[in-house]
């Protein structure tokens, strides 16, 4: 040890010397190749909240791409769960949320009471929430898509978790579900089991389709997974205005959501061209699913995915740009 130790400094010195030599030989210097600064001015910084799902990421990527490329904005993306993102309106650290599912309680707090946020219109995407089965089941048991037949098949859905009843695999915790009330009020012989995360839900459906095991679960669309496995919706009693007023007594399906955009009051009043862009932004479920597919399946970075879509759809983009 002592002997080898002695060579320690010498070896290190050698490394350093070699490094110096190398540098003598050249190599590009930092700063030499720096591109010209890219700010065109007039827009400033936009703080985009990025909620943790791919569809959202698609919206945000396209908006950010256009804002940076066409408007010269500096876009700062902040990875935040919904509630924290909304809090950000209050603290002034978030300018926009570009795909919002409902959240009436948060709207009430931040738009109506605190008045730190305002709505910036719909995204054009329709959100569907409900109960789904994997496609092989819909094929094998065609009548399963009617909730009235669910009890007939309850035994199929038994698992180690469901205590002798059929299992209804519930949600990603981000969403308030009515499922416990639904099961009770529709007299279904099912037990709600909380999967706890989107990853758990998707994995469950993926395995169910692959191994042809029965599964009934809460899911939603648009969602990138739908393009991998097209889940089939089970129809609950149709939604009518106000049928979900009393959470305890709900016995109807989830409403169709018009997904929308929320921006901070300050941002809306700033006159930033980016605000106009966000306000004008709308596209279809197919558009979003395409970009989401680029990201999730083709493993493109959100920036690349956005660039590709924007280049393929110049007309749609043009319609979003501020008129001035």
């Amino acid at each position, binding site marked *: 040890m002592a002997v080898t130790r002695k060579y320690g400094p010498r070896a*290190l010195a050698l490394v350093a010397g070699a490094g110096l030599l190398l540098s003598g030989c050249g190599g590009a210097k*930092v700063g030499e190749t720096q591109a010209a600064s890219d700010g065109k001015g007039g827009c400033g910084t936009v703080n985009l909240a990025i909620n943790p799902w791919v569809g959202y990421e698609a919206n945000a990527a396209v908006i950010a791409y256009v804002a940076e490329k066409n408007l010269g904005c500096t876009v700062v993306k902040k990875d935040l769960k919904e509630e924290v993102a909304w809090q950000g309106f209050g603290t002034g650290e978030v300018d926009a949320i570009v795909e919002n599912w409902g959240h009436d309680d948060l709207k009430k707090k931040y738009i109506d009471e605190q008045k730190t946020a305002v709505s910036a219109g719909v995204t054009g995407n329709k959100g569907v929430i409900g109960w789904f089965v994997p496609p092989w089941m819909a094929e094998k048991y065609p009548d399963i898509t009617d909730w009235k037949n669910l009890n007939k098949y309850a035994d199929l859905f038994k698992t180690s978790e469901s205590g002798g009843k059929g299992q209804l695999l519930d949600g990603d915790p981000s969403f308030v579900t009515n499922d416990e009330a639904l099961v009770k009020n529709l007299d279904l012989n099912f037990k709600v089991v909380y999967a706890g995360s989107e990853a758990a839900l998707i994995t469950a459906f993926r395995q169910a389709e692959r191994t042809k095991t029965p599964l009934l679960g809460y899911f939603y669309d648009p969602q990138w997974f739908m393009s991998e496995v097209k889940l089939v919706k089970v129809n609950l009693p149709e939604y009518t205005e106000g049928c979900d007023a009393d959470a305890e007594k709900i016995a109807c399906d989830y409403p169709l959501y018009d997904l929308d955009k929320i921006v901070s009051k300050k941002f809306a009043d700033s006159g930033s061209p980016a605000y106009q862009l966000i306000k004008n932004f709308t596209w279809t479920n197919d558009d979003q699913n395409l970009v989401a597919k680029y990201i999730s399946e083709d493993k493109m970075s959100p920036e690349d995915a956005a660039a590709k879509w924007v280049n393929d759809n110049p007309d749609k983009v043009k319609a979003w740009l501020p008129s001035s």
Partner: protein
Amino acid sequence: MVAVSAPVTRRLPSRSYLTGAVLLAWIALWVLLNGRDTLPLGGAQLTPLHTRFGEGADVIDANRDSNPVFLYFVNYIRLFIDATVTFVQALISQPSFGRPVPLVGWLGVTGVATAIAYLYGNRKVAVLTAAGFVSFGLLGLWEESMDTLALTLTAVALSLAVGIPLGVWAGLSDRFNRVVTPVLDFMQTMPTFVYLAPLTLFFLIGPASATVATMIYAIPPAIRLTAHGIRQTPPATLEAAEALGVTGGQSLRKVRLPLAKQTIVVGINQTIMAALSMATIAALIDAPGLGKTVLKALQTLDVGTAFNAGLAIVIMAIVLDRVTSAASRRVEIAHRTGRSGRRRLRRMETAATAVAAVVLVYLSYTYVWAAEFPAGADLGSYVRRGADAASGWVQETLVAYTNGLKNAITYALLNPFEALLAGSPWWLVAVVAVALALLLAGVRASITAAVGCVLLVALGLWHDSMVTLATTLVATLLVMVLGVVLGVWMGRSDRVDRVLRPVLDAGQTMPAFVYLVPILGLFGATRFTAIIAAVVFAAPVSVKLVAEGIRGVPHTAVEAATAGGASTWQLISKVQLPMARAGITLAASQGLIYVLSMVVVGGLVGAGALGYDVVAGFSQYQLRGKGLAAGLAIVVLGIVLDRIMRAAAARAGGSSATR
């Protein structure tokens, strides 16, 4: 076991009979009363307390801009932390000072890290450090790794700046120690998810919140171990110093602190590990770094990418662990290289190392090739593809067998246990808990148990708590089975130790989010998946502690038994395991705490109950109060179980000593 029937029990004929009787009575009553007074609460239901908790957060929100505490205190802390993190990022991870790259590039950072490892550790860990840092680049995650490192180092530095002085205080003052211990328990068992969102109200979204969240989890080991080290100073040494007339300050500076140094370094090591283990969770509030990569990958179930980033975290953890461990060993032999000649050599060595590091820093400041990691060498894509393939293969081929395993354990162990705990009336469980605590652990523990039960009921989450308790206890049981089997194996063979240790380290530091997808694929969204995740995380600690205990059995005892002709099995069961009891007890209590810290992760994969309540509370505005209550319930469970276990172990140990 011997201890239970030891002669201490003067009043009570036999404690084990009584324990058995209590359990039998419980089961009998459960048959009669099954399903009554179980206090269930639906997923979206709230109690008035939950609503009140939820409104508490709004008060902060409303006062943030006017309250002087915020204006003059919290805000300055936030500004300070933000500036610190940003500065470190500018140094090593983010483009800064008008440059397209950070001040110090990959070569410089690697050089400095290696030099530090060499000077404070040894040659071996220096090589490991160099390899580790280069691997961040090779995995294609240089910038992310440096962001994580920047945040971790800042959080660690601040944790130590706060924790070591408090630890010294707790080491010197019994009163302060008594006050601070439950606070630390609280900080370590309260799930991060609970305070993550409220934290952003205090410290806003950004590095400050992430750093503070990390610190809350990372400070306790620094305080505990510093206090422990200070307390441990041999009384004889202190007395000798006092007889020489030292002042309080001298005694601290010249006697206690130097003697506690090694323990404090162990504390630093644990603080670093704890801080790193927060990398992923902190990413939920926009903490930069590898955690973000993992979370992003999870959105698309991209196991390969998640694994790649997880691997970088594991490597960072192992490097930091080995360097600090080597440094703590070095502390012991610090000056021993004493003799003047060696000393001069050492000084030269230090100077040469420092110069080399400075040269590398300069190069990486100046030249692009040394600043940005060359993109050509891309190990990351291989790792990603490999992990993807492995995960896919496992999910496709093993699933047939794993289902059987899952069902066996769930139906044979978990379901009956849960039925007993969650299906009995709450008052019956409370009475049983108090009685068992009294029998096994004494009066104080039984009072703790009673208070705990009352709190759980008051929090409105009794039923969920019992479901979580059942899962937790089963997981702890599995952890201990693994812990004893592997621990004995590892404690008896250095070779096994060498092979197993990195695997255990990986299990402990790989973010759970990385392996959630494959185990979800294998076991579905079930409580068993949650148990597996908990076991992966908690078993390594238990294994290591048991191995430590086995290794600590005096050589003479083993020799004597061997000389007496004991077989290997007899040796293990009659000598090594009983004599390693302290280590095994510690393994069990630590295992339990680690399992509890995975309750929330369990909630993400189908365990429901408290874990899900916490996660949902974090995600849903209406449920935030319930999430807080669930977090408190987890703390209550943790503290009660810990206290009972420790008291029971102390009593068992004590009575065996009086034998």
